[in-house]
Each structure stands twice: as C-alpha cells, then as structure tokens.
C-alpha cells in the first residue's frame, strides 16, 4: 500500500506540487490525469525519490520512505517507468534489463515472465536500446522495471508517442499485473480513454493541485474531460 499525503514540491521560487495526496493498494490501478505541465511527472518523481519534497509524507508498505534515495526505494519494491522511456541507449536490450538486477543476488537472471509479457524483446536481446523503435523502447522500459520484481509499478505516460497496437499490448500488461499479479500501479496519463479503461481510481491535477479525485465509475466523465482539454 502506497500513501502519499500533502506533498509539496518547489524548484527555487516556483511551486509545482501543492498539497497533493494519492494512495493505491495492491491489485489497484490509480491514474493521475492532467494537462501538460500540471505536475503529474513531478508527483511520480517525488514518489520515486528523484525529487526532494519540501513537505508531506510518502508511506510505502507501512514505512516512511521520504528520506530514502531512488536506489533504496527501488530496492524496497518500487518500479519506475519514466516519461520518454529513458532506456540506456548504448546498452543492449539484455544489458538494459540486467541493470535492474542490482538488488538481486549474484548470478540471478532476468525473470522469464518478462519475456512472456513482451515476447518481442527476446528477438532483440543483442540490439542496442537506442536502435529500437519508440514502441519497443516503451516495452523495454516496462520490462526493465519488472525485472527488479517490484510490488508497486509507477508509469509516466507510457502511451506518449506510441503506435496504437503497442498501446493495446501495454494496457493488457498493466491489467494483468494489477489483476492477476496483485501489483499496485500508479499511471500518469494524458490519454483519457486509456486511463479510464484501466484505472480503479482517477486523480485529476490542475496547476500543481488535485482538482478532482475518486473512483473511476463515480466520476463525472464530462467534468474530467473538461479539465483535460482546452
């Protein structure tokens, strides 16, 4: 169970998160929606430990992780799929996956189920990450996060710039992880339909604040759309 409460984050004089709260339990998908630049990615980066928050708390599996660095949070079971994929361009697919074995015992291998979820990666094991197409890179980024066997997966706009068939694959994987594998999933999206179909709860952000939050079925879709489009 992840519970982030009242998170404040600013860069110098500009505040990008103002008292944002979010929680997600095992088997659940929590979607964070909002237009560009409202602070969705900052929220995820704060949860991952890539940003130093000025206020609030982040409780993961009963422990405060606010003081931990990203590596320690990863070792505590949080997996991160960054915006824009950010795979290692000069490492092969195999090596990209192996980076996530940092916390695993010596001699561990990439779990076979990663390849079951993304069979295409098996064909490209020796290819450099930078040479893959955008959709393949996105699959690699998710596979890489799964290699560390996390219990919470946070995904930052996994559909951005990806062709529709791959988006379907990604949706299938996320649903499988939450429903069959009991993962907790936090999903940041701009693509409303994609999020609505997957999410149990939806949080809509506007200018660094939560504008609307609740169970997916209970939210007024028109109102959400109004906050998203212009």
């Amino acid at each position, binding site marked *: 169970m992840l519970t982030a409460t009242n998170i404040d984050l600013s*860069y*110098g*004089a*500009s505040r*990008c998160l103002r008292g944002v709260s979010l929680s997600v339990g095992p088997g659940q998908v929590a979607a964070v929606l909002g*237009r*560009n*630049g409202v602070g969705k990615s900052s929220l995820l980066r704060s949860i991952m430990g890539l940003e130093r928050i000025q206020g609030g708390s982040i409780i993961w599996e009963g422990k405060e992780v606010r003081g931990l660095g990203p590596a320690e949070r990863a070792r505590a079971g949080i997996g991160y799929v960054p*915006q*824009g994929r950010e795979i290692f361009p000069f490492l092969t697919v195999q090596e990209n996956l192996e980076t996530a074995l940092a916390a695993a015992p010596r001699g561990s291998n990439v779990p076979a189920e990663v390849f079951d979820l993304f069979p295409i990666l098996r064909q490209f094991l020796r290819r450099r990450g*930078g*040479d893959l197409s955008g959709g393949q890179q996105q699959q690699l980024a998710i596979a890489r996060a799964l290699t560390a066997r996390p219990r919470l997966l946070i995904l930052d706009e996994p559909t*951005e*710039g990806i062709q529709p068939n791959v988006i379907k694959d990604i949706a299938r994987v996320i649903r499988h992880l939450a429903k069959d594998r009991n993962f907790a999933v936090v999903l940041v999206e*701009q*693509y*409303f*339909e*994609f999020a609505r179909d997957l999410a149990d709860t939806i949080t809509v952000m506007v*200018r660094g604040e939560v504008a609307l939050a609740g169970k997916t079925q209970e939210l007024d879709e028109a109102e959400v*759309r109004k906050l*998203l*489009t*212009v």
Partner: protein
Amino acid sequence: MNEPQDLAALPHAVSTKGLYLDGVSVVFDGFRALNSLSLIVEPGELRAVIGPNGAGKTTMMDCITGKTRPGSGIVRFGDRDLTRMDEASIANLGIGRKFQKPTVFDALTVFENLELALKAPRGPIACLRWVLSGEARSRIEKTMLEIGLTVRAGDLAGLLSHGQRQWLEIGMLLMQDPQLLLVDEPVAGMTDHETEQTAALLVGIAGERSVVVVEHDLEFVKALNSKVTVLHEGSVLSEGSISHVQNDPRVVEVYLGR
C-alpha cells in the same frame, strides 16, 4: 493564409522580410529531429508553435539561432542565409531568443542584465568605453516598467522569483530591439495571473516585431489569439487559427485528448 503544402511548392528564391524555413531536416545519430520542416513567419506576426514532446520545437529554434546546423534545407531571415552565420551574428541581425530554462545573469542586477542586452556596439573596446546615456537609461526604465520589475532594478537577478526571471528574460529580448523574437515556453512555472500578464505582454510586443512562441499550455496559446502551427515528428502537421487546429482530426489524434 498559406497551407504548408502550398509553401513547399514556392520557389526557393522567394523573398520575404520575415522568417523563411523550407525543407529543413536535422538528423541526430539516425534520429530525425526535423523532417523537411517548412514555416513562414511574416514581419509583425505573432505565431504560436505547439506540439508534443520531441516534435522538434526546440531543434527548430536551434536551427534559426545558429546553435544547430541543419543537414539540409533553407533557413533565411529577410535576405540573409542563417545557416552560414554564428550565434552572435544572428543575434545582431535582430533575432532574439528566450530559452526554455530562463538564463539571466544571476551575478548582475536587473538593470545591468537589461543594459547588457540593450542594442549597442558589442566589441570589447566599445564595452569598455560605454557610458549609459540618458536615452539608454530611459529605454531600460521603460522596459522595466513593461515587465513590471521597476522596483527590483537594483536587485541581483539571482534573487528574482521564477516568473520574474522569465519576464526579465523577455525584457532582455526587447532591449535587443529584435525584429524577430523566439520565445520558448515563457509561462512554464508561472501562476495563472502571471500567465495572463505574459500573454498580454507578448501580444503587445507583436505588431512591431515578429514573435514566435513555443508553448505546451493550450490555454495560454488561446490567450495569444494568433495563428497556430502544430509540429509533429519534425514537420508541420497543421497550421491555422486556434479553432481550425483544434478541430483538425490529425491534431486531435496526436496531441489533444484522444
């Protein structure tokens, strides 16, 4: 209003007083950052450029200001070929640029930042002999008024808030007395109120000068009430008024709520 298709058909010798880009391509290590991009900005025009991340907005600015040399294509300003000039000469030609991350000189005061940007001889000797004339002072003071920083004139730029830094940088652009302003994400990190003020400021600037604004924030773009160019994968996807663009199914597909 020219549609992009028509643009590509124009003869290359076309002469416009404004900015003229045609068939510009930039390739980084196999990645096409710009793919035969064509764009015309008339003198005095205000133009918004939008597009998702990686659409090539910043690379386009880099090509215009001499930071990146395009692999192929034409980049002209008036009758000058920008691909053959360095950053300083392009700036002296009258093209000013505001970066995405505001870069003002923290160790100098607001006044000094503006003074540095003020159009004047740029050589070392000229700078050594520079004496602030009454006319120059009044120009700087006028600009400080415009960007709302008059009371902070003597403060170090490093002490300004994020929004104030953005404005100072716009002010520095104005001091250069440019014919063309390139403004990259001017309202990132600004409050609603600041955003409105910025929109008004930019609208006020256009008319005398061409202004190209790159922005994510569609509400802000709406407030500019100008012609909009949508970039996608390094080329122009759609161009026209904000309502035209909003109703273009291709734009909806790649950029707006799908």
